[in-house]
């Protein structure tokens, strides 16, 4: 129990950073209805770019910005693969993700690059979760990132362009009939999403004190877990878009706190990824089961050509 309480602040900090990442997943998965696997690559790219730039002496904010931009570039590539080359969403993401593995190695020069928190002005670090003045506390800083991002996205998705993005994800046929360029919107959404993920990755690398070629592995599953946990718990009470995004962040925190509890109870940590996959699989199945076994849904065919 003591071990768990001791580890709790760290789990919360990690949860917030991954909650930020999950907001990116929410935009593709929930808003655009596009399961984007690019993020497994981007969740390393952002960290790699940020750490390498800081090691070269660049300002931490500039490094974060560039990391975000590189993430957006990755989203752009996936978007082009899908919209201009007609490759299905999942496969487009996987192709970019694979390519990013090489890119990430080239950025870092080797598979792991460490950064010393004492020598560099890191914004977040696992050393800064306890006994720090509030403004330098990693939990506070990460939470602030989440809140600012939610505020920006709340504004954006209320604009004409943002509304057209939501419409694109909801009903592409109707969107085109209303003059919306759905392909362009998918690309924009992917860029925003991957930019956010790369930003989270940059923070995550600072937090851990290193960037590692494997740090993005399974990121999509963790992101989905946060999205699903947040949605399931809060869907009845959080109707507003900003609150929905907040729910996703809280979902990320819950995920990491539960994970920490499971570890503290002595669960074999080799099996953690499998546990995550199983939990996400079950939650993804719930809506399907509901539809098939508990309700009779009338479907109409021939949509496009009727």
């Amino acid at each position: 129990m003591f071990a768990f309480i001791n580890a709790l602040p760290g789990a919360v900090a990690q949860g917030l950073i991954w909650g930020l990442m999950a907001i990116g997943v929410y935009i593709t998965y929930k808003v655009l209805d596009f399961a984007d696997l690019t993020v497994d690559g981007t969740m390393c790219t952002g960290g790699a770019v940020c750490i390498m730039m800081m090691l070269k002496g660049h300002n931490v904010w500039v490094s974060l910005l560039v990391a975000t931009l590189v993430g957006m570039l990755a989203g752009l590539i996936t978007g082009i693969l899908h919209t201009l080359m007609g490759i299905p969403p999942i496969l487009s993401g996987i192709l970019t993700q694979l390519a990013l593995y090489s890119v990430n190695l080239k950025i870092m020069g080797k598979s792991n690059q460490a950064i010393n928190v004492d020598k560099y002005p890191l914004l977040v670090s696992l050393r800064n979760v306890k006994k720090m003045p509030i403004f330098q506390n990693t939990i506070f800083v990460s939470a602030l990132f989440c809140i600012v991002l939610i505020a920006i996205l709340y504004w954006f998705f209320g604009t004409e362009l943002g509304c057209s993005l939501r419409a694109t994800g909801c009903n592409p046929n109707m969107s085109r009939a209303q003059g919306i360029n759905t392909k362009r919107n998918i690309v924009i959404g992917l860029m925003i999403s991957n930019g956010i993920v790369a930003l989270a990755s940059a923070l995550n690398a600072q937090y851990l004190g290193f960037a590692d070629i494997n740090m993005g592995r399974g990121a999509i599953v963790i992101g989905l877990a946060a999205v699903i946990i947040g949605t399931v718990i809060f869907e009845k009470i959080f109707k507003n878009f900003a609150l929905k995004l907040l729910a996703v962040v809280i979902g990320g925190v819950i995920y990491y706190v539960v994970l920490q509890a499971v570890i503290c109870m002595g669960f074999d940590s080799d099996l953690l990824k499998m546990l995550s996959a199983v939990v996400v699989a079950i939650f993804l199945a719930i809506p399907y089961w509901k539809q098939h076994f508990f309700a009779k849904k009338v479907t109409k065919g021939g949509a496009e050509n009727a």
Partner: protein
Amino acid sequence: MLDVKNISKTFYPGTINEKTAIDNLSFHMDDGDFVTVIGGNGAGKSSLLNALAGTWLVDEGSIVIDGTDVTKMPEHKRAAFLGRVFQDPMLGTAATMGIDENLALAARRGKLRGLKPGISKAERESYRELVASLGLGLEDRLTAKVGLLSGGQRQAITLLMSTLQRPKLLLLDEHTAALDPKTAAKVLETTNRIVNEHHLTTLMITHNMKDAIANGNRLIMMSNGKIIYDVRGEEKQRLQVTDLLKKFEEVAGSSSMSDKLILG
């Protein structure tokens, strides 16, 4: 207003599934024409509308809307000229967005969508009146998600959306077919009111021959991707359902007549 010259469209060319949906079709509509379109299943009615809307590009021929050649123009750009209501009520609206948000999307058809607010207060007020004109009581549920509405209500909203920005051409593809008779009549009545109010050039597909005769100033019948019958004015008004049935039999032979054509 609309000039269609020798358009053709073949699906799956060169395979055993090859199907010529539109066969060297030419067609002209004057400003303010309200044309009803009938024809058996697979006659190519929806294909004609899809060709005009740019759902896919035609293999041959040209389409000119009010002087603008749109033959090669992608669907979302052409939308600036067109209003569309689909047969499936689910298809015309964004279910997860509010009635007001859907209307606001439609109000920006053909315009650049930037970082201005997606919907303004004044706009919302103006939609209240507009929605009230439908007489469905939806004006008090303006922010309700469209997914919560019935099929008829959704079609009525879609109709508003398709005409909010006055389209050069209104395309209606069996837009009352999925509704119960009473709701269908109501939506059709609303259609006529809006079309007359804004003097819209309209193309309406229907399987109901009474409706086809009673509405509009011109009627065309399609078969095998061609227009095989085209009447207007007084001649159209004198038409009886039996005349149309006879026409169908002439072209199709009674054997391939679809049940849908037999009127209830």
